[in-house]
């Protein structure tokens, strides 16, 4: 199970990182979402993986650490809110700047020209 989880986390973060480094806002937002998934899984695994045990002390032969579950819950809620915000911001940027590049333009701007104006 450890290998499967580790593989999932690795794949998700690799894809997430690749997408974050793209130039358009939509892939970047998707990349952030994937990275958040990876992080949530990682946090979940940080309490060590136990199969089929309740997160309550004394109710079974062993127990799952309940704290990472609480942490993941918080992280999911926060990640959800942040993703919603970044989606709205990306749409706003598309409207304000006229394109969906993360820098607001496809070509780098010539700063010296702006100063001379």
């Amino acid at each position: 199970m450890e290998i499967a989880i580790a593989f999932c986390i690795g794949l998700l973060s690799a894809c997430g990182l690749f997408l974050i480094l793209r130039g358009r806002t939509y892939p970047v937002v998707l990349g952030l979402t994937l990275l958040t998934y990876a992080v949530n899984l990682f946090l979940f695994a940080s309490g060590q993986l136990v199969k089929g045990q309740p997160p309550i002390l004394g109710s079974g032969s062993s127990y799952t650490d309940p704290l990472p579950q609480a942490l993941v819950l918080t992280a999911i809620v926060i990640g959800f809110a942040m993703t919603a915000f970044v989606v709205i911001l990306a749409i706003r940027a598309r409207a304000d700047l006229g394109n969906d590049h993360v820098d607001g333009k496809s070509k780098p701007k010539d700063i010296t020209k702006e100063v001379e104006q």
Partner: protein
Amino acid sequence: MMQHLPILPILLPMIGAIITMLPWLVNKIQLTRWVSILTLLCNIAIITLLAWQPDTIIYQVGNWDAPFGISLVADNLASYMLLVTGLLAIPAMLYSFSGIDRQGSFFHPLFLFQIMGINGAFLTGDLFNLFVFFEVLLIASYALLIHAGGKAKTQAAIHYVVLNLVGSSCFLIGLGLIYASSGTLNMADLAIKVSVIKGDQAILLQAGALMLFLVFALKAAALPLHFWLPNTYAAASAPVAALFAIMTKVGLYAIWRVFVGIFGDQAGELANFIAPWVWPVAVLTMLVAIIGTLAAYSLRRLAGQLIIGSVAALLFAIALNNPQATAAGLYYLAHSTFAGAALFLIADMVSQQRGKADDRFVPSRPVHNARILGGVFFVVAIALIGMPPLAGFIGKFAIMQAATTTSQMLWLYPLMLIASLATLIAFSRAGSVIFWKHSNAKADEDAQVAWPQLTAVALLITLNLFMVIWAGTIFEPLSQMANQMHQVGMGG
């Protein structure tokens, strides 16, 4: 009653924010302003009361016991940072009364939520809780950054938001590693456990802690994670940029808490493992800040570069890793926050009076209120350059004095002094172009400095003067605080 004091700096701005969001306050701007300024005044009163307590107050939220529940630790360091934030928030809020708060919706609630997040980040005694409060202050800052709208703000916001979201993910990975290897996220508990962790677990823990350092360095805008800062701060509206002056310091505070408090001298295998990293980072950040200061082409960008410079100076204070340096750093932190904020406010007032030239260093029509603006500009410039008699001089001098070994001096002295020289050159250039070298066009008679704007800047300058006059009185508790931090670690 006293034991509930630490939760109030978090609850109070939250309540204020909720009140200012209520539907029947939406179009009553005067009433909203009164509510928010009163909230900030109550906030500062509570913080003063908190700072007055000599002992550390530990508050267990919901009365859950220490390593399981969330604890708030109101020690001297936290109260000091709260005090600096509270004192900065009032002038920043006051400045917005000139009409900036009406340029977009929900300025007041967002501002108060941001204060809540910053206060929470300073008070928390739990690493996961620190993450939560970071997110609170970040989401408020995302929305504040695009307050009043415009192309420049949206563009800066995209970079700022995406970078910080990646930062948040790294933060969580770091927390996961720390929890996996030590079994706790409570700072005091971790400070005890870290001394006995050995072998593989210690390496995992170190990896986690380094991830945290990455995130804090991003927040603090240390090299090479500083690229977002000049754009973001130059784009934000003036009161927001002024408030953001404390944001980089939140990152530095977190570095102090975690890497001096937890991974300090008594951390066993991992004692001071960050030390070899901080020094080069500080040197490089300072170098880039010097180049940036000289290359800045507008007043706001100059202010942003100076913020990076102050971050570098504070990183030096952290890297020196002795009580004297810490005390000096804390003093310099307050000074650079107030003076940096004042420069952002002045830049905004100047740009209002120069038409299309904005705050860029190009000749244009004369500034209408040249005497007043030139005067405050001059005072703030002296403070930021670090010339006597203002607080910048005392702060820089104290940090330099704290260098003990020759190799430290060899790096620190030239860099700090060259930074001061570069700032002096940049300010001379800026001041002479903006206030003296103008075209023959007439000054804009309609552009008048409003009283809330001037009062805000005057307040910040007064704070700076207070810091000079009572420098001895301020240094005394700071030194005690620094001694405590270095002897026992924090929160323990």
